[in-house]
Structures are given as C-alpha cells and as structure tokens.
C-alpha cells in the first residue's frame, strides 16, 4: 500500500480553503424598496443573495446578450448583431438592445411559440391545423392582446363560430375529454397538477383536495365535442367538431378512500368559493334561439354558461391565476419558476422568493396583463444578468479566500448558527400557529360538510323530482303533439268539405251559362260527397276536444311537477345560502392555514439550507483534521521505515556472526572427527598388538625353545607401549577439541539469540508500520467519503443558489431554440429573411418613405415567410430534443440520436459550410488570424477566445489556403455540436 499515494492525495494536503464568508446582513421581510422605485430595482432589491459569497459574478454583457436573444427571440444573436452590440456605446447599451429585441419580429414569434407550448404542450394537430392555430396566435400577439383576455377567450371560445375555431384548440385537441381538460386547466391556468386528486384527496400533496379537482371539472363537465354542419369557402357542406356547452348539471362524487362520504361540487377555482348558480327548470336552461351565425347541428347555448363563469374569474383578482402566470413569465427569462416545477403550486412547495412573486404579480395585474411589460422589467434587472459561477466555484479572486478555522470563517459559522437558531425559534411559534390554523380550518370544513350532507340529500330528492318533471314535460309534449295531430285531421276534413262546396259553387256558375245534364249530375255528386263527409266531422271535433282536454291535463300535470320541483328548490335555497356562508368561512380558514403552512415550509427550507452550509463547513473542517492526522501518521510511519533500515543492518550483522561461528564450528567438528578416527585406529592397533601378544604367549607353552618368542613378545610389547603413548596423546587432543566445540556451540547459541532478537524487533516494527498504514488508509477513506459528502452538499447548494437567484440557473436551449440558433449562427435564417423581403419588394415595392407601420408590417411579413419556410428544419430538432406530448416543460436530456442527426443528418454540417456572407466564409476570407479567431468565438458563442482557443484556432487557420475552408468548416460544425452552444451562458 506504499504506492497508495497518488497525486490527488498530495493535493489534499494542500491548504484547505474556504471562500469569503462576509455577511451582507440578512434580507429582512420588511419592504426593501422605496416608493416610486421601478420594478426592475425592486427585482434587484428583492433578489439580493443572503450572503455575499453566494452571489455570482455578473456575466459579461455580450454573454448576457446571448441569453437575452434566446429568451426574447428563441435564437442566438447573429455574428453581426454581436459586432453591432460591441460597437454600441456602453452607456445605456443594455437598455437599447433590450428595446431592439423586443421590437424584433422574432420576438413576436417567440411569444407565439410560448403561447403554443404553454397551452398545447406539443399536442398533435387533430381538429385545428397548424396554419390556423399559428395565425390565431399571431393575431393575439400582434394585437398586443392582454394575456388574461387571451386566456378568457380560450375558455369561453365561442363554439358556434367558425372564425374563432382555433380558440377552441385547447379543448378540441385534448379530445374534448373532461378529465384531460380539467387536469390541464388546473396545470396550465392555475399551476396546480391535481391529477391524483380525481378519486381522492391527493395522496402526496396535502394541499390538493378532491374538492378542488371537481370544482374545476364542474366548469367543463357540461361541455363535449359536437359535430356542427356548415359550409366551406366553396359552399360545400362541411362537418366540424366543436366543443359545445350543453345544459349544466353536476355529478356527485365520492372519495375512493372514504366510502360513503359523498359530495356535490359546483364550480370553483383554486382558492375560491363555489360559484352559486340559479336553479333553472329543465325547460329554461337552454336559450330559445341560436346565436347569430351559428351553424347547424349544434345545441343552443345554455342560459348559464359555466365556461363563461370560469372565464370571468380569470382576472387579476384571482391570486392563484395571476401568480401562476407571473411564474410562467418569469420562467421565460430564467428557465425555471419562482415556484418550481411550474405546475406544483402548493403549500409544501412555496415560492423561493415570496416577496418577489408578490411584487411581480402586483405589477402584472397593474399593467393589465401586458406580458412584454413585465418581461422587459425583468430583462433590465441585474438579477437577470447574473452569471453561473458563485464564490464556491473557486473562480473568485484571492481576497475571497480564507482558511477553515480562521477567525473570519469562524465568524461566518457563528453567524449561520445564530441565524439558524433564530429561525428555529420562529418555527416553534409558527408550528403552534399552524396547528391552530389547521384545527380552525378543519372545524370550518366539518361544518361545511355537515351542511353539504343536507344539500346532497335535497339534491337527490331534486333529482327524483326532476325525473318526474322531465317525464311530465315529455308527456305534455306528446299530448300537445296528439292535439296538433287531431286538430290537423279535423282541419283537413273541414277543408275538404269546404273545397267540395267551392267546387260545387263553381259548377253552379258554369251551369248558369247553359243547362247541361252532365254538369247537373256533377253538382249533385259533389254536394252529395260533401254531405257524406259532414257526419265524419263531429267525431273528429270530439277527438280534437278530447286531445285538447288531455293536453291541458298534461300541462297542469307538468305545472304540478314544476311546482313540486320548485318546492324542493325553495327548500334548497336556504341550505344553499347556509352553505355559501360556510363555504366562505372554510375557504378563508383554509387560506389562513395555507399561508401559515407555506411560511412554515419556507422556514424549514431555510433552516435546511443553512444546515447544509453548516454541514459542509463542519465536514470540511473534519476533512482537514483527517488530513493533518494522516500527515502525522505518515511522518511517524516514515520514521519507522527509516528505523527498519537500521535494524536491517543489525540483523545482517547478527546473521553474519552466527554464520561465522557456525562456519568455524563446522571446521573444528570436522577436525575432531578426524582425531576421533585416528584414536579409533590406534586403539585398534593396540588391541591387535595385545591379541598378537596373547597368541604368542599361548604358543610359548607348545614350543621347546621360547627365546625367539620372548623376543617377539618384547617387540610386541614395545610396539604396544609406543602405540599407547600415541593413543594418550591423541585422546588428549580429542578432549581439547571437544571442549572447543562445546565452547563454540555456546557462542553460536548466543549469536543466534542475538539474531532472533533483532528479527523479533523488526517484525514488531513492521507490524507497527502496517498498523499505521491501516490507520492512514482509514483516514484516507474517511476523507474521501467526506469529500464526496461535501461534493453532494455542494451540488445541493447549487440548487439552492439557483432557486434563490444568487446564480443563474443551468439551462439548456429548448429544441426550438437549438434549431433556430443553428440556423441563425450559420446565417441561414437571416438570408431567408432577406430573400423573403426581396421577393416582397419585387411584387410590391415599398419605398423608404413608406410609413413606419407599413415598413414594420413588411418586416414581420418577411420574417414570418422565412420562418414558415424553415419550420420543417426546426421540427426535426423538436422531434429529437423535446419532451413528449403533454409534458409541462422541456426537460434537458441528451441521447445519441440527437448527436447522430447533428453529425450525420447532413443539415448541420451543410449549413456550416462556407457560403455567401456567413460566418464560416468570413473567417475563411479573413487575412488577420487574430481577428478571425475573435470572430469565431464572438459570432458563435458571444465571447472572446481563451488563450487555449487562440492557440488551437490559430493553428487551424494557419493551414494553407487549400485546406483552410474545409478546416474552418469543421471547426464551425464542432462549435455548433459542442456543449457550450447547447447551453445558456
């Protein structure tokens, strides 16, 4: 594990630093703007970051221009616009360009796109074609129709009128389905996705009740798709689906969670009370006559229109409605709402900046819902021009850096702790208030439910009476028809008799001219016929009289039923009145509860945010601790490793000593063995001599003369004496050597002991080193984990900072922005516009002296002509880069099929080729390399090149004239395909 010291760990040993923690002082809840302050100033004042070090550096103006152009025109500035911007005197420059972009026809197209995506969420064109829809939206935008008015039109959408049929697209292309429409009215108009509240109170969002959902549903439940008959431009019969409103009626609903508790809801908007309606008898609900211009097959409109009722409430006075639209307008400029996600307004998801939302809402309402006015004020603010980098990103200057543990850092930490403590104290109080408010609300709700029970019962009764009433109506209608039929028969007979009489009279006149027997016969026959018919008259008259009587009886019966019906209605009236009172109380109590709970949530979120900072701070300190510990251990370990080296020498020496002793011992033992052998040999010789002597002595008795023998014995004895001398000598030598061996053996033992001791010492040392390594590793692991945690916390800050407007949100270009931006950067769109204008000029010349409106109209015409021609190219981007149908926003995602299109689809690479006066060609033609490099980054990305880019591009541009066009072409494509082009600055 010695190798486990890669460079990154060395990096960790570098001083641990934190960024400036200078407080700007808390942002109070008191009004921070002075009277007469512009909205732009208010925006800046209200979005001041909580701590200075969390605020981003401002963006360069050119970069901001890219943002502005994308937001206001759905496309990047052209290279020429960037250049013109830089050429504008800096004093007041921003304002000049904000105005310029607002006045650009592309801005109108952008707003058309906004209306389209917001209202239709990329739904397919089924009942209304694209051209009709776009023409309608363009009319709204061109006429500067106030937003609320447009939205009222969408809801009311005069369905008998073909001219404004596009207005109905919101309903038509949702298939006229009441639930789909109710959900989207909630989402789009009020920022509340209450999908899950259809069958029960929302399981995850406490603020969305089943009652809220059905309140919205009631506005559209009487409407449905109906086929109307009309004629087209050529006079041929045409059948068109219309979203027509029929007679109202409401359905009871019951929670699938709480069986048996059933409700009836009249219409109500979020945050509002039920809208009372007059109880109209079944025969009085539909207008007697069709509206002017209505075409066939459609029912007459109802006397009380629920859609009209909803439309009436789409006003500034409805705060939920106004706040939702402010939030959506804000999202045009910031890519996210002050409440986010956009269709999740509820008390557990409060706005990130409630004061700002309130100020903007007031301003939108005061401006009579002029979207552009609000948007302009937003775009003028400093807040809008904030950068992406906060002090946390390590990009700020030296002054901002301090050390963890330094007095400044501690002061900052103290400040956070204090703020958090204060908030927590407030929260305790708020919690109490919230509990009380909830109880109060629940009491009013229970009271309302009690009365609601009465209404449900009475309404059930009324449903019965209504059935009988309808039945009586039907019978009366049948009776009337029977009477009409009887009367018809009677009249027919009368007429016949009369005609016969008249015929006879005419014949009489003819007869007066000359007597004719045949004529006389005819007269008689005619009269006879008439006479013969007369008796039939009486029964018919009787039948008519009977039918009349029956009809009158049925009428009376009908009126009796009406009376009964009315009787119940009269009994409902006081209940309704009671209910209205209770409803008002419930709604008011709920509003109080909602507002307190919103504040509680805000407080909790704030505490959580501070808590994250504290955690980050403490974890950073801890990491620093781990780091210094690790350093200490490393030092200790290094010392021990050095000690090991010394011990290794010692060990070697001991080993050598042992080896030396054992070596000499071996020698001596070898010598001893030799001596042992000699001793043995001599002993053998001595005993041999002894046995020779013994055999000589035996032989002596056998021989007569023993002299020779005696001499031999003497010789043998002498030999024995000599050998024994040798033996003694050798034995002495042997003994000496044995002693030496023993001595050396004991020496060897000692040497071995020394050696073992050194080995043991070394093992202990190496164990300690291993233990230190483990400890160090543990610290490194802890440190790594700490760094990971810090990084996670850091990315959560990033969310916090984006939400609190301290830094610009991370945004990717929408699919349409991506498409139009590629077409703009490559000069395709501008040249199409030029072509359109030239064509228009050819067919209908417009002089320079033409009135400004005419010139502007011409400009718009040119831009729209170009846009319509290029739209299919942008549709390709929409298909690849967009979220699916019905999704509220275009969440960023990246997939290989997008990249495959940009790389191999042919279009993007084709557009990037040098052509005419496009950027690629300008760069190719430029003889000044520095200028060319500048043009590339400015024209495509709105900024100056970095040093690296300077070098890289210069290298490419220095290629010979043959390869330069191709290389620049590739470079332009590469920039368009790069991450920076896809993102907002």
């Amino acid at each position, binding site marked *: 594990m010695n190798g486990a010291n890669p460079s990154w760990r060395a990096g960790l040993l570098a001083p641990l630093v934190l960024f400036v923690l200078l407080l700007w002082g808390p942002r109070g809840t008191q009004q921070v703007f002075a009277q007469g302050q512009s909205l732009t100033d208010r925006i800046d004042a209200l979005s001041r970051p909580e701590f200075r070090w969390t605020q981003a550096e401002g963006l360069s103006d050119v970069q901001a221009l890219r943002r502005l152009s994308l937001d206001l025109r759905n496309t990047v500035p052209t290279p020429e616009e960037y250049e013109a911007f830089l050429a504008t005197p800096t004093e007041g420059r921003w304002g000049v360009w904000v105005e310029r972009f607002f006045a650009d026809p592309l801005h109108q197209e952008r707003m058309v796109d906004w209306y389209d995506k917001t209202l239709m969420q990329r739904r397919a064109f089924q009942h209304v074609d694209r051209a009709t829809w776009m023409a309608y939206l363009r009319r709204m935008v061109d006429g500067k129709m106030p937003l609320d008015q447009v939205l009222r039109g969408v809801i009311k959408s005069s369905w008998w009128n073909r001219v404004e049929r596009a207005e109905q697209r919101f309903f038509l292309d949702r298939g006229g389905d009441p639930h*789909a429409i109710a959900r989207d009215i909630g989402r789009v108009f009020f920022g509340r996705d209450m999908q899950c509240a*259809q069958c029960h109170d929302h399981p995850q969002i406490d603020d969305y009740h089943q009652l809220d959902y059905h309140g919205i549903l009631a506005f559209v439940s009487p409407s449905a798709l109906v086929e109307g008959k009309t004629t087209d431009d050529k006079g041929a019969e045409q059948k068109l689906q219309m979203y027509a409103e029929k007679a109202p009626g409401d359905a009871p609903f019951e929670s699938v969670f709480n069986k048996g508790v059933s409700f009836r809801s009249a219409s109500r908007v979020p945050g509002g009370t039920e809208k009372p309606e007059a109880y109209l008898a079944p025969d009085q609900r539909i207008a007697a006559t069709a509206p002017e211009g209505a075409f066939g097959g459609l029912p007459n409109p109802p006397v009380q229109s629920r859609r009209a009722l909803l439309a009436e409430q789409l006003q500034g006075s409805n705060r939920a409605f106004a706040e939702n639209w402010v939030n959506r307008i804000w999202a045009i400029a910031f890519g996210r709402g002050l409440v986010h996600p956009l269709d999740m307004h509820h008390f557990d998801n409060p706005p990130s900046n409630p004061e700002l939302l309130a100020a903007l809402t007031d301003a939108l309402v005061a401006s009579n819902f002029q979207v552009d006015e609000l948007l302009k004020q937003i775009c003028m603010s400093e807040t809008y021009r904030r950068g992406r980098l906060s002090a946390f990103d390590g990009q700020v200057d030296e002054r901002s850096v301090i050390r963890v543990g330094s007095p400044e850092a501690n002061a900052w930490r103290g400040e956070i702790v204090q703020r958090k403590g204060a908030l927590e104290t407030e929260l305790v109080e708020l919690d109490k208030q919230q509990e009380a408010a909830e109880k109060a609300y629940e009491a009013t709700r229970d009271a309302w439910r009690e009365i609601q029970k009465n209404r449900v019962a009475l309404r059930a009764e009324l449903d019965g009476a209504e059935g009988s009433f309808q039945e009586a109506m039907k019978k009366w209608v049948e009776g009337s028809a029977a009477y009409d039929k009887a009367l018809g028969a009677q009249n027919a007979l009368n007429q016949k008799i009369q005609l016969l009489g008249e015929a006879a009279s005419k014949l009489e006149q003819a007869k007066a001219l000359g007597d004719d027997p045949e004529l006389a016969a005819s007269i008689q026959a005619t009269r006879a016929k008439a006479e013969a018919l007369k008796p039939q008259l009486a029964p018919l008259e009787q039948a008519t009289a009977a039918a009349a009587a029956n009809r009158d009886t049925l009428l009376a019966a009908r009126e009796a039923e009406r009376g009964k019906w009315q009787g119940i209605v009269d009994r409902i009236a006081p209940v309704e009145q009671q209910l209205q009172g209770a409803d008002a109380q419930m709604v008011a109590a709920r509003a109080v509860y909602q507002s307190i709970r919103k504040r509680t949530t805000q407080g909790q979120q704030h505490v959580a945010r501070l808590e994250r900072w504290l955690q980050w701070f403490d974890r950073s300190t801890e990491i620093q601790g781990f780091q210094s510990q690790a350093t200490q251990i490393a030092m200790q370990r290094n010392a021990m490793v050095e000690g090991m080296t010394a011990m290794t020498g010692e060990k070697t020496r001991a080993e050598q000593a042992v080896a030396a002793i054992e070596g000499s011992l071996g020698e001596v033992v070898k010598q001893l063995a030799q001596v042992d052998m000699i001793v043995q040999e001599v002993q053998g010789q001595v005993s041999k001599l002894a046995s020779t002597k013994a055999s000589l002595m035996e032989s002596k008795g056998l021989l007569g003369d023993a002299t020779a023998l005696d001499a031999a014995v003497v010789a043998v004895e002498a030999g024995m004496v000599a050998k024994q001398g040798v033996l003694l000598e050798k034995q002495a030598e042997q003994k000496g050597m044995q002693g030496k061996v023993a001595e050396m053996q004991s020496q060897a033992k000692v040497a071995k002991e020394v050696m073992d001791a050194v080995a043991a010492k070394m093992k202990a040392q190496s164990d300690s080193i291993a233990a230190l390594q483990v400890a160090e590793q543990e610290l490194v692991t802890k440190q790594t984990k700490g*760094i990971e945690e810090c990084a996670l916390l850091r990315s959560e800050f990033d969310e916090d900072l984006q939400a609190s407007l301290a830094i610009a949100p991370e945004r990717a270009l929408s699919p349409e922005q991506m498409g139009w931006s590629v077409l703009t950067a490559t000069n395709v769109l501008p040249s199409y516009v030029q072509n359109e204008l030239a064509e228009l000029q050819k067919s209908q010349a417009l002089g320079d002296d033409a009135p400004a409106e005419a010139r502007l109209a011409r400009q718009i015409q040119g831009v729209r002509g170009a846009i319509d021609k290029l739209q299919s190219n942008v549709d390709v981007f929409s298909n690849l880069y967009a979220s699916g149908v019905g999704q509220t926003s275009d969440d960023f*995602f990246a997939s290989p099929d997008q990249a495959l299109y940009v790389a*191999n689809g042919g279009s993007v690479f084709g557009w990037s080729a040098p052509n005419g006066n496009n950027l690629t060609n300008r760069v190719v033609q430029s003889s000044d390399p520095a200028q060319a490099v500048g043009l590339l980054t400015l024209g495509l990305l709105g900024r100056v090149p970095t040093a690296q*880019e300077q070098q890289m591009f210069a290298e490419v541009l220095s290629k010979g004239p043959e390869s330069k066009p191709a290389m620049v072409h*590739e470079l332009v494509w590469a920039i368009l395909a790069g*991450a920076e082009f896809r993102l907002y600055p």
Partner: protein
Amino acid sequence: MKKAHYACGSMEHLVNRRRFLGAATGATVAGSAALGTGLGGGGVVGSLSALASGAAAAEVTKNDYRVVVFNMHGGLSQLESWDPKPGAKTGGPFRAIPTSVPGIHISELMPKTAKQMHHLCLLRGVNTSEDDHGKGAYMMLTGRRQTPSAEYPQIGSVAAKMLHDEQTGLPGHIIVTPGGGGGRGNEAAYLGPKYSSIHLGGDKPPQNSVKPDAISAEVEQRRHEFRRRINEQFLSQRRSAVTDAYTHSYEQALRLMEKREVFDVSKESQAAQDRYGTSELGRQCLVARRLLENGVSFVQVTHSNYDTHNDNFNFHIEQVGEFDEAFANFIDDLAQRGMLEKTLVVVLSEFGRTPNINLYYGRDHWSRAWSVVMAGAKTIRGAAFGKTNDEGTEVVDGQVDHGDIFHTILRAVGVDSSQSLIVDGRELPIADPAAEPIWKVLV
C-alpha cells in the same frame, strides 16, 4: 399534522434527477469545479466520479436480463394457435397436436413451435375486457387502462430504464417494425424521451447512423477531435451532469456508428440467415437476436396483421405458419446459445378472436378469454397456466389480465414491480398497484 412521506427507495428519491442525469450515462462525472471548495484542486476527479456512479449503482440494480416482445398486431386467434378447441363448434377446421411437453396440445398450425414447448409458458386465461384495437394495445403494453388524465410508459421504456446499461453504446429500447422510419417513438411518458424507442425499419440500422459519403474519414476524425477539444476547453470552466450527458451523447453516437453492424443481419453466417429464412418476421427475429446479444435491453418485433374478420382460417394458415417458423427458430436459437436464461420472450396481441365464427368465416375481437405466451428468464418452462371452457368462450381457471401480465414481465426479469419512481415530486408506481405478478408462473 404532517403526512408520512412515502419511501420508495427509487433512485430519484436519493439522487435528484438533474444530478443523476450525468451519472446515469456512466460518464465520469464532475471535477474540481463541481467540488469547488479548493479542497484539493484538480486531484479529486477520480473520487468524484466514483461518487456519482457509486450512488447510482447503489440505487439501481441493473441486471443483464432482456425482454423481447412479439406483437401479434391485429389480434392473433388463440383458437388457431395456443388454445385450440378441436371438435367444438367454435373450434374451426384445425386439429390440435401434441408438443414436447406431454399433455399440452397446440394448434397443428404450429408444428415447429410444438417442439419448443418445453421452453414455453402458456397463459391461457387472459381476460382484458377491451375489444378496441387502440385501447387493447395500450393496455397490453402499459399494463394499465388508458385514462385521459394520465399517461403511462410502455413496457419497453420501463425495461430500458430498469435494465439497460448505457455502456453498450446501443439504445435500450428498440421497436423493429416493417417500414419503421428510424425515428424515435413516444412511449416513455413521464420516464422522459430518453427511454422512448428507436424505431428500426425491418433490418435497417437507425437513422443517421452512417457517416455521409461526402465526409472523408480524415474529416470525420478531425471534426470530432475539434469538438472534443472545444468541449474540454469549456468543461474545464463549467462542468455539470448536463454537460457530461451532452458530450457523452456524441461519444455514444460514435460508438453506435461503430456498432452499426449489429443491425446488419447480412453479417450473420449464411447458415444463420438460412435458418431464419427470408420472411420479414424471420429477418426481424435475427435482428432481435443480434441486438439482444449486443446488450439491447428491450426489442419489440411486429407481426402484422391478424385482424381476420374475414376468412380467418386461410389467413391463419399462412400467417401462423410464418410465425411458427421464425418463432420456433428464435426460441431454439436463444436456448442453444444459453440466452434464454436471461431473456424473457413474450408473445402478445391487443386481444384474441371470437370463438364464434362469423358469416364470412372470420372471427371478430374477443378479449374475454385469450392467450399470451412467455418463455425464458424467470418464468417456468413447459407449462400451461389457466384454462378456458370447452368452447373457449370464458376463462374457467387461472384468469389474469394486462396488469398482472405487466407485473409478471417485470418480475421475470428481476425487477421489483411493486416499486415506485419519483418524478418531479410525484410518486409513480411502475406497475398498476391494483394488479400483481402471476407468482405461479415465476420461479
């Protein structure tokens, strides 16, 4: 009073979506800028990437299971396939034949499939009560009834989300359909378009997956090198999950181009091509096998069109015959290659056909008693689950519906079908909580 918040253990719960994006791509995420505290300068890249992918790995247990769906478009007749009723007045003219599993008989129109029965699991008790083509198809593919106020992702998108490993460089959700344009479908609902299908036209590779001829290899290499250098320069200052996902998508695209051969069945041996035959379905099966082998998690092939209101029997002779050949081959091939252990094969329609034979010798729409077939992965082998009555008009045993089947598909590939995903603060169960897996057909 606070409501208890639902804990679901889904990845979005712990790792929020935006942050997760980058990690999900498997890219090395983050860098010193993301840490940004000056803690160690540029030295922490390694540990951070470990963090991002580690967090992801802990939450999503991707496995190497795959799913392939045979969509028998128009409504396959169960009586001429999986659940024959020879001799009954509703039975039609065809016999039933024995299969490799004693006791299980299927229509004589499927002799080859009969030999593969030991791999299959028949669900003969399907009752979905929906006789409309569009609604029936929606139910079978999403496991839910269509409601106007909510949209649900199809099985292919769910499988891609839960199973697919992006490192393969191939898309996770592919629909092979004759005449498919090569574009992206719209089946993912709230899972996001990332999990929508790539449509393949028969055995043709995806749109734009080949370098235009006008661009030389040299230019191709150079322009992408430019792109990388330009990105590096930008990312050294600003790096996030978003930028990583975006730059990574281009590398993925290049890898897909390299892997383009996967889509090209002519790269298969002649023997393999002969085996799968020249029928369109046969070719689709071969593409499907290649895609599965190369790590695509979900492939849907289409066999069209079974909507036989007229002349049901002649039509089925032809159509089922073609299916039999391709399907039996496919199963056999997967089994031989050992792929069936990890591949779930599903044969479904939007509904079955009426037992009653109409005046035109046709059968009409019938959703009250029909059959779906599964094979492989964690399903039991050689089984017939569920039973219809003698005339095939009603289910008498083992009744299941689209919701149960959806759960079963997920379970069969090791996905807990009772879990939920959290998307934009909404808790969304991946399968209908009112239904549950058919445990008896799962091992």
